[in-house]
């Protein structure tokens, strides 16, 4: 709201210093966007439609500077007599309709009036339209002028639009209305969308000789709904939908008639028609002195409480323990005591209220498990050399689809900002792929990133952690700079599981976004927590990744991990008191046999003294029969109550080897201590 200070000063003896007025009102809740000479541009919050006016701002400034506000309406004309045309209200969406007819001579406005409009950011059009705009800016009440000759009847009917009723609005757009919308109509057809915009057919033009001035009050929800359905926001709709002053229509109309005479644009014919079937009841709100002090944390002297409220237009009477306060109709935002406390507080000054600290009256509860989980994940994964990324929750459909089990389970946004933000991510991987591509294309060869957060499907929202690795695991002058592969991705899954105290298993699987043969499901018991694998190169190329080493990654659902982790702290096991005996075995075995199965055979044929089985070499090539691999495992035997003998361990090893040979056709290569 651009308010020229000279205009505000017509209503209160304010300092002739725009910067000072701007600064003082800024401290009272009216943020100032700019001060340009005499014109202060205020940002008016949605609760203060009364300050979308020069007079409203003058009232606030008069309160802030403790000077008297002059009433603008003492000398307003009040033409008596019968109104020249009938007005009927046929819908509750209009609570008041004031109207007057005037004969006019259309021309330009006087310079002073046009200049004020321009300063306030409104383009002058002609003397009649300018008067309605001038009144709106000054009083805050939107008005409209119809060319009386273009009104059928002539008469005014306020009614709902007929379904598909058409109206060309002042902006030249042909609009199709529906029966939720309130219109101003003449005898036959709609001539304006109530509170939003007038119709082009009854627009005041150079040929106009008689006008009907409208000054009405429409229900905020009605105007808001019509404005939204039509996609049409105007100065009028902004004021009506926030709540106009139901006392204002007649006063605004009288001010317009005063300007009409003053500027020589015309003269009223007949009286004012003011249809106001159910006048609004006065509202009184009780203000307790104790609750005022309690909510602000400061005691405002009674004289200041009363001064502030009276200045702002409230009527204040003393009552037991405080005040009874009558709320003026222009303060549509004040409905209860807290609203009055705010009025007192902001003009008393928030900065005067002493800073205190609330006493702790209960022991705080521990942070939510999800927050603790995310903190732990970040600690573990950054410790493992992964950089945390932060990618958008909504992504392009093309980026999402390859990572969705089924495109029908994607969750689209109804009103996305653009196609780049069209669907909610079904997985963390597409966002991480784009982040990886971004860095790879900007001189970063080795990328290790992770993110934890929400992922979405038509079944709802869950949280997961995802990671991607590419390039050297370790880049050092001493040599090995081998690129990350499947097992690096798998290792992160093991690390995350270990961090939450569970042991997961992996089994071969397929996913469209992972390379077949290098894809695994990670499971906790029978529950699949997620997948790891090598991303399909074509998919990466489609996102713009230049050729390079493989990109591997994985994703795990977090809810099951946190459930497992929720228990008591894990107890340690006593350290062994007797030495262990280690046996390394190397054997040829079928190349397609999963290591997990070999491990299973070993365990199921070993005594309980076998405490660990660990693969330490896998080789295929020279010296190994076709279709086989050489697998080396280290077996550790130990008993908690005694020292094992070589003889009994050898018996166990022999039994294991026999089972491996019988079940898998394993051929012992040799035995090393």
């Amino acid at each position, binding site marked *: 709201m651009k308010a020229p200070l000279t205009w505000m000063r017509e209503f209160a003896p304010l300092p002739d210093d725009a910067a000072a007025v701007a600064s003082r009102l800024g401290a009272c809740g009216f943020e100032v966007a700019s001060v340009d000479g005499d014109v202060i541009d205020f940002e008016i919050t949605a*609760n203060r439609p009364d300050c979308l006016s020069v007079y409203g701002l003058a009232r606030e400034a008069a309160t802030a500077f403790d000077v008297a506000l002059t009433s603008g309406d003492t000398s307003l004309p009040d033409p008596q007599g019968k109104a020249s045309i009938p007005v009927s209200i046929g819908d509750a969406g209009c609570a008041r309709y004031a109207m007057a007819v005037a004969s006019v001579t259309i021309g330009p406005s006087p310079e002073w009036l046009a200049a004020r409009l321009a300063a306030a950011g409104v383009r002058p059009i002609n003397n009649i339209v300018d008067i309605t705009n001038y009144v709106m800016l000054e009083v805050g009440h939107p008005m409209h002028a119809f060319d009386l000759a273009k009104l059928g009847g002539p008469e005014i009917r306020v009614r709902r639009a007929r379904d598909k009723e058409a109206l060309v609005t002042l902006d030249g757009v042909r609009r199709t209305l529906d029966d939720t919308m309130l219109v101003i109509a003449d005898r036959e057809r709609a001539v304006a969308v109530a509170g939003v915009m007038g119709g082009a057919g009854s627009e005041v033009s150079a040929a106009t000789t008689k006008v009907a001035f409208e000054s009405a009050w429409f229900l905020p929800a009605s105007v808001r709904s019509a404005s939204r359905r039509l996609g049409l926001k105007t100065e009028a709709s902004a004021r009506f939908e926030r709540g106009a002053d139901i006392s204002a229509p007649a006063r605004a109309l009288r001010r317009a008639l005063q300007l009409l005479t003053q500027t020589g644009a015309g003269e009223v014919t007949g009286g004012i028609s003011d249809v106001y079937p159910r006048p609004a009841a006065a509202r009184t709100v009780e203000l307790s002195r104790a609750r005022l002090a309690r*909510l602000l944390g*400061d005691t405002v002297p009674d004289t200041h409480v009363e001064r502030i409220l009276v200045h702002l237009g409230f009527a204040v009477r003393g009552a037991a323990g405080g005040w009874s306060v009558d709320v003026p109709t222009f303060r549509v935002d004040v409905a209860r*005591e807290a609203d009055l406390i705010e009025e007192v507080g902001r003009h008393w000054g928030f900065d005067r209220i002493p800073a205190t*600290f609330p006493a702790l*009256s209960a022991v*705080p509860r521990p942070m939510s498990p999800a927050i603790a989980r995310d903190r732990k994940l970040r600690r573990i994964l950054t410790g493992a050399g992964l950089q945390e990324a*932060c990618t958008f929750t909504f992504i392009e459909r093309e980026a999402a689809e390859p990572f969705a089990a089924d495109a029908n389970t994607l969750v689209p946004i109804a009103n*996305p900002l653009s196609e780049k933000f069209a669907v909610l991510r079904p997985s963390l991987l597409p966002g991480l792929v784009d982040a990886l591509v971004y860095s790879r294309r900007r001189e970063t060869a080795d990328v290790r990133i992770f993110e934890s957060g929400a992922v*979405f499907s038509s079944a709802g929202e869950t949280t997961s952690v995802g990671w991607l690795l590419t390039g050297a695991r370790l880049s050092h002058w001493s040599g090995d700079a081998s690129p990350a592969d499947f097992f690096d991705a798998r290792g992160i899954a093991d690390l995350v599981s270990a961090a939450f105290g569970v042991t997961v298993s992996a089994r071969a699987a397929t996913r469209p976004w992972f390379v077949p043969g290098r894809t695994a499901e990670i499971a906790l018991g029978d529950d699949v927590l997620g997948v790891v694998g090598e991303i399909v190169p074509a998919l990466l190329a489609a996102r713009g990744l230049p050729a390079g080493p493989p990109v591997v990654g994985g994703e795990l659902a977090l809810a099951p991990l946190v459930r497992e982790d929720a228990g008591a702290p894990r107890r340690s096991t006593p350290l062994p008191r007797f030495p262990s005996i280690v046996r390394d075995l190397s054997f040829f075995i079928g190349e397609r046999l999963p290591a997990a199965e070999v491990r299973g055979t070993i365990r199921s044929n070993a005594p309980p003294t076998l405490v660990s089985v660990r693969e330490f070499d896998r080789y295929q090539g020279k010296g190994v029969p076709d279709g086989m691999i050489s697998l080396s495992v280290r077996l550790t035997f130990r008993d908690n109550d005694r020292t094992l003998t070589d003889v009994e361990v050898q018996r166990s090893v022999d039994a294991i080897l026999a089972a491996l040979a019988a079940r898998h056709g394993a051929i012992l290569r040799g035995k090393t201590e």
Partner: protein
Amino acid sequence: MSLVDDLRSEFHAALAGATSPAAARALRDQFLSRKQGKVTALLKAVGAAPADERRVLGAAANALKQDIEAALDAREAELAAGAPPPGAVDVTLPGRLAAPGRRHPLTQVRERIEDIFLGMGYQIIDGPELEDDWHNFEALNMPPEHPARDMQDTLYLAAPVPPMSAGRPATLLRTHTSGMQIRYMEAHKPPVRIIAPGRVYRRDNFDATHTPMFTQVEGLVVDEGISLGDLKGTLNTFASQFFGREIRTRFRPSFFPYTEPSAELDVECQGCDGTGCGLCKQTGWIEILGCGMVHPAVFEAVGYDPAVYTGFAFGVGIERLALRLYGVDDIRMFYENDLRFLGQVPL
């Protein structure tokens, strides 16, 4: 005699360059070797000198030989003392470590805020990013058709999805984390002292100062007798701890549907210490958060008695603070994940 002096000068010039054992050995050969040593040759020449000069020349040549031997011995000892022990490595080469991973700058700011409030006895809560209309709007004193809904241009789902926990189907992306606070109050009696961090979504432009997704930490305190003064004391403490020094603040009245009175908190500009600069548009102040006393209608929505309880709430935008903290001028950098940028923030 000048022959002796010349040779001495020549030796000392050469000695200066003999900084390795091999060079010292070569120098010894050059001057003292029995076959072609320059001093050896000089000594041989002494015999051919006239008899009256022979004794003086001989003495001078011998003295030169001894000087050179002593100088070479000293240099070789010196070089031997500096030789690396067996198995020595060049310790100036880089060490071996996996490149460290860092928390994202937005996480760092978020945890910094969380930790300040943890220290003040707050509980950190979490909640769903997809919300229903009740938790995002209605319970927060924003009934349907409320104009304040325009303040938070909302992204809606094309079709509702089941809620994360029991309740109404989710229809929108939360525009603030206040929904979590409603859920918390629905489930717990006062006193309440919580912070609710998380991502929030608005149908906003995507440019240097706006993103359609950003991160918030909201806070809520409810108890008997909580005042605006308590809000001021708490947030002043927060601002000083966040910026690491005592910092001037000001509370400006503002409007939010869910608080009454409402305020915005400005802190003195870090760019100019409050004297006015481009960063703060010459005002000396930077707005960092919105806050206020919980609106009684919110208490009524969750079944708290507003005659008994009062409370304050606040909401901090993390990106805006991160821009200040890291001296970044484009908010989009936080979402590009350029490792050259992410690698600059502290470990």
